């Protein structure tokens, strides 16, 4: 099937919506997404939930350990664990 330059599938719209949450969707992709959002309820629902999740993540100021930081904790813990067992 020939790919339309303006009309996109629901899957593609979701993909653009995901990228948009990270500010990585291009201007043209955002136009295509906006067009899809204007008539597709499924995309609109997905976009709403996606934005809600992004807002919650920003609001929570959530943090986590970097992989190397976790490794360091794991190393020192393993040493103690061996002594313990």
């Amino acid at each position, binding site marked *: 099937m020939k790919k339309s330059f303006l009309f996109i599938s629901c899957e593609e719209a979701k993909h653009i919506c995901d990228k948009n949450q990270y500010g990585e969707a291009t201007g043209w992709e955002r136009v295509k997404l906006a067009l899809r959002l204007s008539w597709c309820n499924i995309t609109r629902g997905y976009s709403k939930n996606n934005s809600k999740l992004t807002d919650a993540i920003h609001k929570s100021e959530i*943090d986590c350990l970097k992989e190397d930081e976790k490794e360091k904790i794991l190393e020192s813990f393993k040493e103690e664990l061996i002594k313990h067992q």
Partner: protein
Amino acid sequence: MANHQLNPNNWINSYSDYLFNYTISRVNDREMAKDLVSETFLAGLKSMSNFKGEASERTWLVSILKRKIIDYYRKINSNKGKAEVRMNYNTDSESEGDWLEERVADPFDKTAEDNLENSELGNAIHECISKLPKKQAEVFKQKTILGYDTETICNELNITASNLWVIIHRARTALAECMEENWF
């Protein structure tokens, strides 16, 4: 009823992010938060014999962490009297007569309740992340929480950009569902 059991081999993978998020929202110092989390796991190991199995493993570790955080504040508060406050006052004539209060951050911007709610929200998100498959959780954390760029993650995990977006899509869908059930 004592039906919970301890499995220290899984502690770091299962609880380190949750405990770290819990700590950093309370001590606001990354290095100190890492130390406190590490100490919590070691203290947990030493006091395993005290575990009665009435609470979950994570609840038990959080209770140890809480005591560690209290000890940390006790320690820094005991040094409070010795602390020396240094502040540069404006000496130019234009700002003469300005009160010290002007230098204090606006306390109405963010309340203690906001901080507590945000911390609980963060914990709820971590709880949902912990239910994701390992790779999804890792990619999501690197992309969303640590803010790594796509290329860095792809190189580190040896995946393509389209793979990354598929993983992100699955993770976000599962997280949105989980948060809908538990929080929103």
